[in-house]
């Protein structure tokens, strides 16, 4: 091998050592990334964990990018080969057969083999650690609670009223699809809202029908209408809305045949009142069930003062702090005691008692007289004047030496005077 080839070989070996070292170092770090990705993939993608190893693909490139900054030139490789007498360097720069130079040896590599071991162990642990016991994370479809809530609402509707089978079937199909959905996508969430609104609309219609029946029954109780007529009118409203599931069987049967009958059979006032109570009970039970399924808002859920659960009621509650001690509010403080403004306490009044000031006096110039006039030199305190002059005069430096020099200033003074040494 010629000298130049040997130098090239040494240079390549140094480059290889730098590259291998960086590869192992980067690999050590990349394996930790791979381990973390394996864990994440096993949690969310279950079996599809193999993409976690993709970061290893960039390892050769990243190692090369860093290692290339540590590659050395031919001159450095030659200097490494030179034994100190300069023969190798001279032979490369000025080849001369009269002077021969030979080079032996190659740099020994010390590669950081231990670097990837912790990362590899972490990857192995990432496969071993059981992830099935980990709690399910978000993004796994529509939550079960939401689906159960929709099912409860549908069940409440079916308990309270006769719903068209096609409509029930459509809602059930939607709920089933949502239950099987693999992700809580925007479309699925929209479907949840739409289904809920649809059932709330049905519940609202039932509630309105119940209110109309209640109004009719109220007219009967107040004597506005005959009870017989009021009961018939209420039953008709309930039958038209399908609000018959909570009725006693005989009344439900009567409601179903109401179209065929020409009105209800003649009843005594007691019988009519009893029937009105049964209808009212069915309406109440239906409303309670719908309220429990959160399909309608009942008065029972309102705990605002005055029973106002609308915006005005909420504003009133906020402003008054619910009237509870310590809860504050906008118009009153958090304390329990009311603020009262009255007379000052007696002790304070004494402290600030008014005092009458004496009248002002003026010089009586008319009754003054001139006793005499004299001239004298101004008296000057020489000592004090000298002190004043000293305070304003420029320092000649002597004072510096008389002062105590703080330790932290000694370096600065020493540096200043050292320049003249």
């Amino acid at each position, binding site marked *: 091998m010629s000298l130049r080839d040997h130098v090239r070989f040494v240079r390549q070996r140094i480059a290889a*050592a730098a590259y291998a*070292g960086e590869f192992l170092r980067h690999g050590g770090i990349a394996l930790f990334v791979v381990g973390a990705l394996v864990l994440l993939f096993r949690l969310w993608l279950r079996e599809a964990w193999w993409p976690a190893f993709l970061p290893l693909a960039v390892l050769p490139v990243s190692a090369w990018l860093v290692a290339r900054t540590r590659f050395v030139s031919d001159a450095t490789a030659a200097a490494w080969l030179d034994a100190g*007498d*300069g023969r190798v360097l001279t032979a490369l720069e*000025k080849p001369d057969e009269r*002077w021969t130079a030979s080079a032996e040896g190659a740099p020994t590599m010390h590669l950081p083999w231990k670097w990837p071991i912790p990362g590899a162990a972490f990857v192995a642990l990432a496969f071993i650690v059981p992830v099935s016991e980990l709690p399910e994370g978000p993004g796994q479809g529509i939550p079960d609670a939401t689906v159960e809530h929709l099912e409860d609402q549908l069940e409440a509707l079916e308990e309270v009223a006769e719903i068209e089978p096609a409509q029930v079937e459509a809602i059930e199909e939607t709920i089933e699809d949502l239950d099987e959905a693999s992700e809580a996508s925007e479309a699925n969430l929209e479907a949840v809202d739409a289904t809920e609104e649809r059932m709330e609309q049905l519940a609202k219609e039932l509630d309105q029908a119940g209110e109309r029946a209640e109004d009719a029954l109220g007219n009967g109780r107040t004597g506005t209408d005959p009870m017989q007529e009021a009961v018939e009118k209420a039953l008709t409203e309930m039958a038209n809305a399908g609000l018959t599931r909570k009725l006693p069987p005989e009344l439900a049967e009567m409601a179903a045949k109401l179209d065929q009958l020409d009105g209800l059979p003649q009843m005594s006032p007691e019988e009519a009142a009893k029937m009105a109570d049964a209808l009212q009970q069915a309406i109440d039970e239906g409303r309670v069930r719908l309220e429990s399924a959160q399909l309608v808002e009942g008065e029972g859920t309102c705990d605002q003062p005055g029973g106002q659960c609308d915006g005005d009621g909420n504003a009133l509650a906020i402003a008054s702090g619910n009237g509870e001690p310590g809860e504050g509010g906008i118009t009153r403080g958090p304390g329990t005691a009311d603020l009262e403004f009255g007379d000052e306490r007696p002790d304070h009044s004494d402290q600030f008692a008014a005092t009458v000031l004496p009248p002002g006096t003026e010089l009586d110039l008319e009754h003054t007289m001139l006793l005499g006039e004299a001239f004298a030199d101004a008296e000057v305190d020489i000592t004090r004047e000298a002190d004043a002059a000293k305070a304003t005069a420029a320092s000649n430096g002597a004072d510096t030496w008389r002062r105590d020099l703080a330790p932290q200033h000694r370096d600065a003074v020493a540096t200043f005077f050292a320049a003249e040494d």
Partner: protein
Amino acid sequence: MSDLLSPDDVRRGQSLAEALLEGLNNRLLGQQELVRLTVVAALARGHVLLEGLPGLGKTELVKGLAGLLGLDFRRVQFTPDLLPGDITGGQVLEEKDGLRRFVFHRGPIFANVVLADEINRASPRTQSAMLEAMQERSVTVLGETHDLPAPFWVLATQNPIELEGTFPLPEAQLDRFLFKLHVERVGAGTLTKILRERRGGRPPEATAVTDEAHLNELFDLVDAVFLPEAVAGYAARLVDATHPSSASSPEVVRANVRYGASPRAAIGIAEAARAHALLAGRPNVGFDDVRAVAPHALGHRIVVDYRGKLDGHDGRSIAADVLAHVGELAEALPDEVA
């Protein structure tokens, strides 16, 4: 075939230098390293400042060098009342054939080898008379420039004690010395040899081992020694690292040095390394040559600040630290390579 020195040329130069070396070693016993560096400085045509206690042979070394080279030698004892004219010479009014005219009388500096003994005892004014002579190898008196004989060396001595009444050499003058060599005491074995072989301490007569022609040939050979780029870079990095503002300087330099070595130091290292390589029988300079001469060329050129002095640092110790800190390779090897 390149323009490298031939093996015959190198052998011839080496034998001449070794004869000089042998002659000086015979004259000054037990000071091989000092003698070798003095010869290196002589081949590099550099001035030398010798520092050491009295009686260690500084003056004998210089006298021996002049005698072995067969050159004109003058000694000037520097004293506080010495004047520049006492060194350079001056115009003297002479009458000849009834005419009076000024004639330049050469001072003792007009010699090939000048021993400036106890140079730090002269006033700065007198010391400065040496500046032009040492750098330009000429003397200017009353506007008239006189060339000094070639070759021309100044070998000055000073002792590190009895500093009362002395004047430290200014940095500009120190910079003109290629080496500052410290003359150490010799051991008991050498002293015994001196006692047995040197009656009254008188050294043997110095017989010239060369003449002017051979000396000039030797200088030409030194000049022809090749300096590889990597080695030149190493010398340059060494000098650069003596500056506290340099990024490559070690911490001890940044903390204790006020001024680093001048470019003249780098030039001096290169010249001395060439001479050192020829003495070793090589046509080229190597890292070893630079390492051998650099401490002596850098030490006296590094100006240590007052903190460094208080901490016990001097130019020599700082130069040693710089050599330990600066690597021969311009680029750092990867950690994976030993």
